[in-house]
């Protein structure tokens, strides 16, 4: 059993608190992605789990055992660093077996386990090479291999793919995913790439300013963001927001445009934010005017940046559109795909 529990964890550097009361349960075998803007505390949280930083208060337990005061080596975790952190003076085989040698695992078993991991990762031809003689992708695989041979309770990844080019990134993404499906080891994966998070994770944790904004399955976050932050953070291009109020069944934007949304909310006049994803705008003969500023056809779809109801918006259409910048088109909103947030509390309504 290797579930991970984080209970009311705080982390301060001096007087600066960078993690504010985080609680999170990760089930055995689950793949969790931590996402959030730069500086929000993703790495810090991961390092707290690893034991590389001491928590200021709260409790972390792994497999039901409190590990607060345990050193990293006693926590039964493996970590893959953004820079890989391969030992430059050891060849691939020694890099991968270093932890086993420290744990006094016998020579035969060591070779067996390194061989197995090398096979999984396709590293057999490179076992005698030094890190400097490897490509970025190969180094990344060695870093993974070093974690795999350990067979730890938990894998921790800190942006392991961010130093790779985009093609390799996609390939490694599916490799890591495959590995997880094979090994079923609890994994916490930090990334700033939401596509990575969406495609790999069982659940995503959105962090902001040292707090958890929302935890949920990728599509749940996408379809039902809890608040404005998650709504704008998940999805690319980001969700469009229009300020306004509900007036008689319609959404009345700040500039006076009435947008039919099919809600039957009491029009109490609270300031609201209407959210609509770019792909949930439709071309329609009669609707709201979208003033086109740029058009970016990609072949499969057309991305338009423009102004709608006085605010800048992005829209994605399956159709090809002949409009020129400067012209207007008319669009309507997918009424069941709109999101409403309270502008004061930023919470979903």
């Amino acid at each position: 059993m290797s579930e991970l529990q984080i209970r009311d964890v705080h982390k301060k550097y001096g007087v600066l608190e960078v993690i504010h009361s985080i609680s999170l349960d990760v089930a055995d075998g689950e793949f969790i992605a931590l996402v959030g803007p730069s500086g929000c505390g993703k790495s810090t949280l991961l390092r707290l789990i690893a034991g590389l930083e001491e928590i200021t208060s709260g409790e972390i337990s792994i497999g039901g055992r409190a590990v607060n005061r345990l050193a990293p080596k006693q926590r039964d975790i493996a970590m893959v660093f953004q820079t890989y952190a391969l030992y430059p003076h050891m060849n691939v085989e020694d890099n991968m077996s270093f932890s086993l040698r420290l744990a006094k695992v016998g020579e035969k078993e060591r070779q067996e386990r390194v061989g197995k991991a090398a096979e999984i990762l396709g590293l057999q031809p490179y076992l005698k090479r030094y890190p400097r003689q490897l490509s970025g992708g190969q180094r990344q695989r060695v870093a993974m291999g070093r974690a795999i041979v350990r067979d730890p309770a938990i894998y921790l990844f800190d942006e392991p793919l961010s130093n790779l080019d985009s093609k390799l990134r996609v390939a490694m993404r599916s490799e890591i995913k495959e590995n997880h499906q094979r090994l079923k080891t609890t994994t916490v994966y930090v990334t700033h790439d939401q596509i990575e998070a969406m495609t790999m994770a069982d659940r995503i944790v959105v962090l902001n300013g040292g707090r958890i904004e929302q935890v949920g399955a990728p599509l749940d976050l996408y379809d039902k963001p809890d608040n404005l932050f998650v709504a704008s953070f998940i999805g690319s291009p980001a969700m469009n927001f229009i300020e306004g109020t509900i007036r008689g069944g319609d959404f009345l934007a700040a500039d006076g445009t009435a947008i039919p949304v099919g809600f039957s909310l009491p029009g109490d006049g609270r300031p609201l934010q209407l959210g609509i994803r770019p792909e949930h705008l439709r071309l329609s003969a009669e609707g709201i005017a979208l003033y086109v500023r740029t058009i970016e056809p990609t072949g499969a779809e057309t991305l338009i940046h423009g102004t709608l109801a006085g605010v800048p918006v992005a829209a994605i259409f399956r159709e090809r559109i002949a409009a020129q910048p400067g012209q207007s088109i008319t669009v309507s909103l997918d009424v069941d795909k709109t999101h409403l947030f309270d502008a004061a509390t930023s919470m979903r309504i």
Partner: protein
Amino acid sequence: MVMLEHSGQFLYADLVSGGANRPIWSRKQIEQVIGYILVAPLLCWMLVVLIYPIFSLLALSLTNTRIIGAPASFIAAENYVATLQSAPFWASVARSLVWLLGNIFLGTVVALAAALLLRQSWLLARHARVWILLPWVIPTVAVSVIWQWMLNTNYGVINIALQHLAITSAPLNIFGSRQLAMVGVIVANTWHWFPLSAVVMFGAMHNIPADLYEAAQIDGANSWQQFRHITLPSIEKVLFALGLVGGLWTLNVFDTIYLITRGGPSDATQTLPVLIYDTAFKGQRIGLAAAMSVVAICLLAALATLYARIAAPKEE
């Protein structure tokens, strides 16, 4: 899948563990303890061999000790009075200043010129970056032999060359002349120490981004202007530090002078360290030498402070 008997493979009962994997000390505390054990030898060494002697120097300076170990009595500030009233002491302070300025001037000029050469990128320059240190590697006693030989009155190559070029008519007895002896030891010392400054200056220049020069070239700056407006400002801090460190080291130089001239002829090259050495071990007046050392240290500190006030590069 690679299986383990148990997932607790990496748990082990630390020596410091209070059982059941709950260490008494956290990882940070263990690191601190080990860290202090590791710095302890160095710190103790410094305390005993460097810091403690500074205090015992103060104590000695208040006694009339003549030879170490011999009985002596407390004479309060008498040694200090003697030091401050001693004409030879102030004369050697003045000589130390001449020695300092001569070395700093000559050393900086030669080192800066050498550093500019080392910055070139061809093969010779790249090898020279290492081999230029040869004069520094050579033991001081060999340096003294080299320069005594080179500047020898009768057989010295420099005297012979000077006469051949008709610059001088008779051979110069450099280390026998009150005026020239100082020049001679400054030359020898500069030769011994300029390589270290040259390499440090080169290092500072090497770290200047090349695009600064490219931008200046595009703006039409000539070599001198590039040196004046890019190189010099960029190595300003290093030059300042070199001046401080090099200056203090230069003032402490004892071996070069003593091995070549013993402070002579008569007392022409008797800088402060030489005077203190002679007072302590030749004149056998340890107490007085200690007082002179204390006064010298105060003068050094004052000079260093003054230098830092005047020459410190301004922070932008």
